[in-house]
């Protein structure tokens, strides 16, 4: 039995009075937490709740037995890595006493506090954590449907789409044109389109040097822009970036003609990678935690939904203010959310968190760049702590870039070991 200080007891009593029904542990039963989504956010959160308080019953709900990681998947597209190196299972979570249910979540009842799965089982919760990642907003870009994605892959959720884009690049003749369409903010992995462009350009330079690559962008600015642009100038003369103000925004696609249409031009592609507009994963709509932006507003200290009590949203699906939609962010948010959930089910108040994000991008296999920031809640949002933002130096010797490329690799090993290992 945990000893409770007088102060904690009073705080728990006050919280208990405000929140009905009483927190599960205050009633003597084990609290039940259900986590939906076994990616970097959900798998981390499930594990850390168990680590913080082993008495809490934690169920992780995930549709697939194998997780395929997005970070580093651009190297798969460029033929530098096998998809197998991106795959992770859930065995270690099960040994940590997390109950893993391999079935999609199909229904959520916020009043009864239950989650229904595709396999017909129903799971009651005291706290629910949703980490559903992204869904594609089909047809938000006219002509870009699920069928279209089989000709013009998005490859923005790793797996078969990643391999499809790789096969298309391999099948393309030397002298072909690759066109990437980059979306407006917000979207998963802000530097992702530009890392992908870099690594495809690397593939073309080494294997198909007469080919060219065009990025059509719905933005005038992007993450690590000057670092990318300097590297492109030095390494990839056949890479062209067309910004919003230069008419780069793709307004529709014509799949039959393999053409991307902007307000001022039509671009015929041999390989087209359309990174489309996105929204929170579908279960966010089912739970009614997404607002009309398609993303989920949350309390910046606990990640509890602003729309539904007792439901928390972490990772790409959440509106996390200044934090980018990245695996590192999801992992950091998951730990904060785990600590908050453990406090809340015990009837106490979550602490004010600090969150960190670092994103590495590869411009070439031996050329890495990074961006980092520290964040905290302020004015009801997650804001960057002043003076903590940083990117790789603009003028650095090749050795520094090579070192950062090894850091990127180490980062991937570290985070995937922490989450799945």
């Amino acid at each position, binding site marked *: 039995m945990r000893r409770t200080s007088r102060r904690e007891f009073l705080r728990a009593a006050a919280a208990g009075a405000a929140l009905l029904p009483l927190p599960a542990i205050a009633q003597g039963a084990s609290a039940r937490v259900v986590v939906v989504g076994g990616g970097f956010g959900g798998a981390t959160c499930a594990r850390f709740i168990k680590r913080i308080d082993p008495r809490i019953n934690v169920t992780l709900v995930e549709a697939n037995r194998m997780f395929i990681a997005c970070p580093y998947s651009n190297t798969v597209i460029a033929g530098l890595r096998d998809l197998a190196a991106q795959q992770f299972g859930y065995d270690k979570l099960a040994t940590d006493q997390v109950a893993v249910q391999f079935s999609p979540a199909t229904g959520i009842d916020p009043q009864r506090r239950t989650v229904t799965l595709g396999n017909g089982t129903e799971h009651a919760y005291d706290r629910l954590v949703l980490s559903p990642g992204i869904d594609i907003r089909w047809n938000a870009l006219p002509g870009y449907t699920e069928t279209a994605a089989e000709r013009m892959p998005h490859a923005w959720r790793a797996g078969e789409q990643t391999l499809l884009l790789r096969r298309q690049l391999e099948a393309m003749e030397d002298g072909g044109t690759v066109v990437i369409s980059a979306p407006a903010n917000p979207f998963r992995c802000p530097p992702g389109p530009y890392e992908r462009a870099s690594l495809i350009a690397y593939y073309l330079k080494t294997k198909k040097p007469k080919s060219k690559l065009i990025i059509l962008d719905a933005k*005038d600015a992007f993450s690590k822009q000057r670092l990318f642009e300097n590297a492109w100038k030095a390494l990839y003369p056949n890479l062209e970036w067309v910004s919003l*103000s*230069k008419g780069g925004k793709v307004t529709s696609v014509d799949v039959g003609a393999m053409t991307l249409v902007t*307000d001022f031009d039509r671009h015929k592609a041999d390989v087209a990678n359309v990174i489309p507009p996105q929204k929170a994963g579908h279960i966010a709509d089912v739970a009614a935690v997404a607002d009309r932006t398609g993303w989920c507003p949350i309390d910046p200290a606990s990640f509890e939904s602003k729309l539904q009590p007792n439901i928390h949203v972490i990772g790409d699906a959440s509106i996390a203010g200044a934090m980018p939609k990245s695996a590192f962010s999801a992992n950091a948010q998951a730990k904060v959310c785990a600590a908050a959930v453990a406090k809340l089910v015990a009837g106490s108040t979550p602490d004010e968190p600090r969150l960190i994000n670092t994103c590495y991008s590869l411009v070439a296999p031996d050329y890495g760049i990074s961006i980092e920031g520290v964040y905290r809640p302020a004015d009801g949002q997650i804001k960057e702590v002043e003076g903590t933002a940083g990117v790789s130096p603009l003028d650095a010797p090749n050795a520094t870039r090579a070192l950062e490329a090894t850091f990127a690799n180490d980062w991937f090993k570290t985070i995937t070991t922490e989450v799945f290992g």
Partner: protein
Amino acid sequence: MARALINAPAKAKRGEVIEIKTLISHIMETGFRPDSTGKPVPRDIITEFICKYNGEEIFRAELFPAIAANPFLTFFTVADETGTLNFEWIGDNGFTATESVNITVE
């Protein structure tokens, strides 16, 4: 130097309603933003846009500080004769830019 993009059909049927799109690169500095020393950055915006079809004005716009950078204007007209569409942007600090495209009406 500003760069303008124009999208107007090269050919049209007589009497057809055609869409014309224009986009010009311009910072559209409002004059209200302080710089690092706290002084306002001087206003630098486009103030006027005019489109003429064979010399006749068919569209005019006044622009103000609230309009975003790189103004993108779309408008419609009726294609009634073969000729030239002339576009002119006028702004602060003596800014001017012109473009023209030809249209064939059948």
